[in-house]
C-alpha cells in the first residue's frame, strides 16, 4: 500500500513537472528548475508562462482528477455495478443541458454563470433521479435505470437547443462540454480546492460505510446499516464532487469510471480506506496526463482533456475487461 502511494505520488510529481515544462514554449528541465527556484535569473517570460498559465491549469487538472476519482469510487460502491459512474446519476447530462441553455439563450454569459448553471443542472438532475427512484426506499438498479432515462431526456434537450441555437454559440458550448482545463486561473484553483476539502474528507471518513453498502441492501441492512440514509448522503457527496468538477472543466469522461477500477486492482477490494487515496492519485495523474497529451499531440491545436481521456480511456477499459476475462479479475 505505502509503496503504491509513494510510486503514484512520484508519478504525479513527474507529470506536474512535465505539465509545467511542455507546451508551445517548451522549457528544459534545467530551465524549469531555475524558474521554480527563482535562481539564475530566469527570463520573466518563462516565469510568467509557468506560474500564471501552466501552474493553475495543472493544479486545476489535478483537483478535477481527484474529484472525479473520488466521486467514481463512491458511485461504484453504492450502485454495485462495475459500470456505474457519476454520469449514471444524470450529473453530466444535467450539467450539459444547463450549460447549453445558458450559452445559447443568453448573450455572452459570464463564465461564472456558466459554472453555476453547470453545477445547478448537475445537482437538479441528481435530485430528480433520487426522488423518482424513491419508492419507500431506494434501490441501486432503479437509480441506474431512472438515471439513464432522465439522461437521455436531458441529452435530447441539449440536442434540441444546439439544433436551433446560433452556430457560434453552439460551437462555444461544445468546446466547453468537451472538457478542458484551458481557462484556469489561481482563483478558480483555490475555490475548487476549498470546495473539495469537505466532501473528500467526508468520503474518506465514510470508507467503512462503503465497505458495507456494496454487499447489497439486504446484507448491509442486516449488518445494521441504515442503507437509504447512507446512500442518500453518498449521492449528495457524488453530486457535490462531480458537479464541481463538471462546472470548472466541462465533461471529462472515463476518469470517474477507470480510476476506482485501477485503484481496486492495485490495493484490492477489501477496504475503501485504502482504495480512496489510491483512486484519487490515479485520477489526478490521469487528468494531468490527458491535459499534457492534449497540448503536445497536435500543436498548435490544444485537444481538450476530456477528448484525450476518452481516447485513452476507452482502450484502457477494454484492456481491463480483457484482463478480467482471462481470469486476472
Amino acid at each position: 500500500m505505502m509503496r503504491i502511494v509513494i510510486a503514484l505520488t512520484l508519478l504525479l510529481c513527474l507529470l506536474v513537472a512535465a505539465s509545467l515544462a511542455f507546451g508551445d514554449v517548451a522549457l528544459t528541465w534545467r530551465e524549469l528548475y531555475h524558474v521554480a527556484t527563482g535562481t539564475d535569473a530566469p527570463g520573466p517570460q518563462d516565469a510568467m508562462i509557468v506560474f500564471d498559465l501552466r501552474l493553475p491549469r495543472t493544479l486545476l487538472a489535478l483537483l478535477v482528477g481527484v474529484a472525479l476519482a473520488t466521486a467514481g469510487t463512491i458511485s461504484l460502491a453504492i450502485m454495485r455495478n462495475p459500470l456505474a459512474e457519476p454520469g449514471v446519476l444524470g450529473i453530466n447530462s444535467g450539467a450539459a443541458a444547463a450549460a447549453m441553455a445558458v450559452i445559447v439563450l443568453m448573450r455572452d454569459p459570464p463564465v461564472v454563470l456558466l459554472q453555476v448553471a453547470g453545477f445547478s443542472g448537475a445537482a437538479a438532475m441528481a435530485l430528480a433521479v433520487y426522488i423518482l427512484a424513491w419508492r419507500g426506499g431506494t434501490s441501486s438498479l432503479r437509480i441506474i435505470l431512472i438515471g439513464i432515462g432522465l439522461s437521455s431526456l436531458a441529452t435530447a434537450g441539449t440536442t434540441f437547443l444546439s439544433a436551433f441555437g446560433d452556430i457560434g454559440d453552439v460551437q462555444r458550448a461544445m468546446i466547453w462540454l468537451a472538457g478542458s482545463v484551458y481557462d484556469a486561473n489561481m482563483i478558480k484553483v483555490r475555490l475548487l480546492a476549498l470546495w473539495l476539502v469537505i466532501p473528500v474528507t467526508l468520503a474518506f471518513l465514510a470508507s467503512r460505510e462503503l465497505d458495507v453498502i456494496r454487499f447489497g441492501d439486504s446484507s448491509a441492512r442486516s449488518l445494521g446499516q441504515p442503507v437509504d440514509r447512507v446512500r442518500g448522503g453518498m449521492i449528495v457527496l457524488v453530486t457535490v464532487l462531480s458537479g464541481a468538477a463538471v462546472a470548472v472543466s466541462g465533461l471529462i469522461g472515463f476518469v470517474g469510471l477507470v480510476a476506482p477500477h485501477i485503484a481496486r486492482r492495485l490495493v484490492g477490494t477489501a477496504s475503501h480506506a485504502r482504495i480512496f487515496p489510491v483512486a484519487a492519485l490515479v485520477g489526478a495523474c490521469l487528468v494531468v496526463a490527458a491535459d499534457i497529451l492534449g497540448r503536445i499531440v497536435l500543436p498548435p491545436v490544444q485537444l481538450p482533456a476530456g477528448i484525450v481521456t476518452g481516447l485513452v480511456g476507452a482502450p484502457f477499459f477494454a484492456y481491463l475487461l480483457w484482463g478480467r476475462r482471462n481470469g486476472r479479475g
Partner: protein
Amino acid sequence: MAVDKEFPVKIAGKGVDIDYGPRRIVEKLDLEIPERRFTALIGPNGSGKSTILRTFAALMKPSGGSILLDGRDVMELSTRDVARKVGVLLQGPVAPEGLTVADLVRLGRYPHRSIFGRWSPEDQDACDEALMLTGLADLSDRALDSLSGGQRQRAWIAMTLAQQGEAILLDEPTTYLDLEHQIELMNLITRLVAKHGKTVVAVLHDINQAARYAEHIVMLKDGRITAAGGPETVISSETIADVFKVKTIVIRDPVAGTPLCIPL
C-alpha cells in the same frame, strides 16, 4: 456492548401481516421462536417462509402486527441495535471479488463500531472466535472466490457470528451444498445451539434434514402455520400430505431416532 445475559433474545411475531406489492403473503401470523433452540421453518415454495424470516430480521416491514425482540418492537429499534442482537444470512450473498475470509468476518463487527471507532481487542476476539467456531482459522487469509461452496457458506456464518448477537437467522443455508457440506453445516448449527447458547432459525427445504437436526419445527402453508412443535408432533404423513401434497409414510430414522418421511 456485550449482550446482557440476564435478558436473552426473545423473538416473537404477533398478528403479523406481510404484503408483497399488492398481494398479502402472510396474514395474522403469531410465531414465537424458542430461545437457545434450533428452529426450522419448512413449507413448500411460496409458503412465505423466506419472507417471514426476512421480516423477523427487520429487513422487511410488516404491514400489520409487530415483531418483538426482547419485548420491543423491532421497528422502534435502530437497524444497528437489531444487528447487535440478530445476525442474518440470506440466500446467495455475493462478496466483492478478491475479498478474504478475514475481511468478510471483520464486517460482522460493523454494528459494534462507531464512525471513528478504532478496531478494538474485543473486535479482534470476536472475529477470532467466529473463525475458530466455523473451523476457518487456517483459511482466514484465503480469498472467498477460491473456497469451496461449503467453506464459503461457513465464512458467511462466521460473519454473522462476529456480530455476537444471540440469534442467527439463516435462509436456506444448505441449498446448493453437497451432502458432506450440508451435514457439516447442520453439525455446526447444532454445536452453536448446544454449546454456545445461540438461537438459530433456518429456512430448510429438506423435511428430513429439519426433522433430524432441528428441535422446533414450524410448518407453513400459504403464509399460515399449519403445525409447530417438536419433530415428533409436526412431521406426520397427514401434515405432509396437507402441506406438501405428497403421500408419504413416516418411519423412525434408524440412526437418529427422529421421524423420517419417505414418499410413496
